[in-house]
């Protein structure tokens, strides 16, 4: 495997009984790339992503994440990836600093490292004033940004974002994407699922899943040319309607 391919997926399949949730998908993601993983609700995005982050066993196929096989080395994968779910998932009854300390600790960072990191993080996000306040009191947009930063705390090779911008206002979404770009510039690969087709335009490459299969894969520009439309929304509609 070349050093540049941080995710390699070949004919990855997941069956639930007779239902094929993910049907032999194949793709590759390069280091530092922002890879958009699109699809309608129920298309199989989340299931596919769960296999890649090691919390769901694939039925068949091959997948290699951050240099480790998902079948045998899930524990090693977990150390090398960050994850942010669509539910906001920090602890509301812990303060900003306590959350950072807790998640830093879970990923095995040393105490001095955590202190260092949390000071930088709090400053970057402009959270100095609320660093010792309970997270539950923060507005959703701030929580979301904090959640993303926490997912990056241990410098993962890849960060998986499951609909990270659901329910936040456009300005915060914009700021959020700036954070994503910054992470990608530092060499972190970003694997992001989203509903928002305008966000798809921000990705380096996107794949579109329909009924468990990847029906389109390429840069947003290429896809628009391929389907002869001028925005990603139309690409998506054309695919989804068959």
């Amino acid at each position: 495997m070349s050093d540049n391919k941080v995710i390699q997926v070949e004919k990855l399949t997941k069956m639930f009984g007779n239902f094929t949730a993910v049907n032999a998908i194949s793709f590759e993601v390069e280091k530092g790339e922002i890879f958009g993983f699109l699809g309608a609700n129920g298309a199989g995005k989340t299931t596919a992503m769960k296999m890649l982050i090691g919390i769901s066993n694939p039925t068949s196929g091959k997948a290699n994440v951050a240099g480790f096989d998902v079948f045998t080395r899930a524990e090693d994968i977990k150390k090398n990836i960050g994850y942010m779910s669509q539910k906001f998932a920090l602890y509301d009854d812990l303060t900003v600093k306590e959350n950072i300390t807790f998640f830093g600790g879970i990923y095995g960072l040393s105490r001095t490292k955590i202190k260092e990191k949390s000071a930088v993080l709090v400053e970057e996000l402009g959270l100095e004033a609320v660093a010792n306040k309970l997270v539950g009191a923060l507005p959703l947009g701030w929580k979301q940004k904090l959640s993303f930063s926490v997912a990056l705390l241990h410098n993962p090779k890849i960060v998986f974002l499951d609909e990270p911008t659901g329910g936040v206002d456009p300005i915060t979404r914009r700021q959020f994407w700036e954070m994503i770009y910054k992470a990608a510039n530092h060499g972190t690969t970003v694997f992001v699922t989203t509903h928002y087709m305008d966000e798809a335009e921000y990705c380096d490459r996107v794949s579109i899943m329909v009924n468990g299969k990847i029906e389109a894969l390429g840069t947003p520009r290429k896809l628009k040319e391929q389907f002869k439309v001028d925005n990603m929304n139309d690409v998506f509609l054309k695919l989804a309607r068959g």
Partner: protein
Amino acid sequence: MKRFIGFIKKEFYHIFRDRRSLFILFGMPIAQIMLFGFAITNEINNVDIAVLDHSKDATTEEIINKISASKYFSINQFIEKESDIDAIFKKGKVKAVLNFEKDFSKNLIKDHNATIQIVTDATDPNTANTISNYVNAILIQYQSVLNKDINITYQVVPETRMVYNPELKSVYMFVPGVMTIILMLVSAMMTSISITREKELGTMEILLVSPIKPIQVIVGKVFPYIFLSIINAIVIVILSIYIFKMPIQGSLILLALESVLFIITALALGILISTISETQQTAMMISLMGLMLPVILLSGFIFPISSMPLPLQLISNIIPAKWFNIIIKGIMLKGVGIQFLWKETLILIGMSVFFIALSVKKYKIRLE
């Protein structure tokens, strides 16, 4: 290990920042033990009784004095005719009426036979029963004093001795019961709620994606509750010794070890509940309905198992609280050691192993 300590610290933040769980953890045990110890009691004390004395002679006076001298009864009033009995019960304060027949002394001396009618208000059957037993006891005692000088050739003299709880204090029965309830409640309900809470909030997913192992997550979640349950058990024992003057006959160390064993059984149940429920509410309902009711009704804590119908007796065997109740009563009241309790202990160990094995099987390490 460092991860683990960080995790436990987080759990304590959760507990200490949530007023509800703080109340369940610390308010409830104290409230329950006080309630059961003081308010809810099978004993009778200073029950108001009325006297309808048709003779008003020396003997009846003596008996009345004996009864009012006992701490169980106080004579509330004297009534004059039979028809007053019903009226006085309807008022509700008087629970029993002693009705002495006419010419009580005379009959006693002449026929060696005189009658007292004990009328009790049986809207509360247990109390009525206890009152009539107590009055009977006082009468029998009086009778034996009367018969002292008379030489009766054949006589069966029952000599009753109440062992392990000679004063028949109901608190002796409630303390072990309350301890069982509290340990079950805190350990099973609180852990199942705290685990399902992480599922509900989505943080469980984050934890499963992190390098921390599922087993560490579970142990980390239950550890604080082991610790708090032990503190609770200690508080209950201290309260019962110093406030209710309950003697602990057996070994405190054995009591502590058995309590830890029961806590582990309850925690295992809590984990099992959390694997089958998706929301905190479900977990709470299952814990309350599935655990609390059987603990209260079928553990033998309030209702004796031996007088239940056979199916219920059989069901009571699968209730861990039943076995713990036997153990804890044995240690506290009878002062017996492990040589008499090994069977119950083994049953609890077996149940814990079974529940843990079942949870491990059910626990979805890989969330589907």
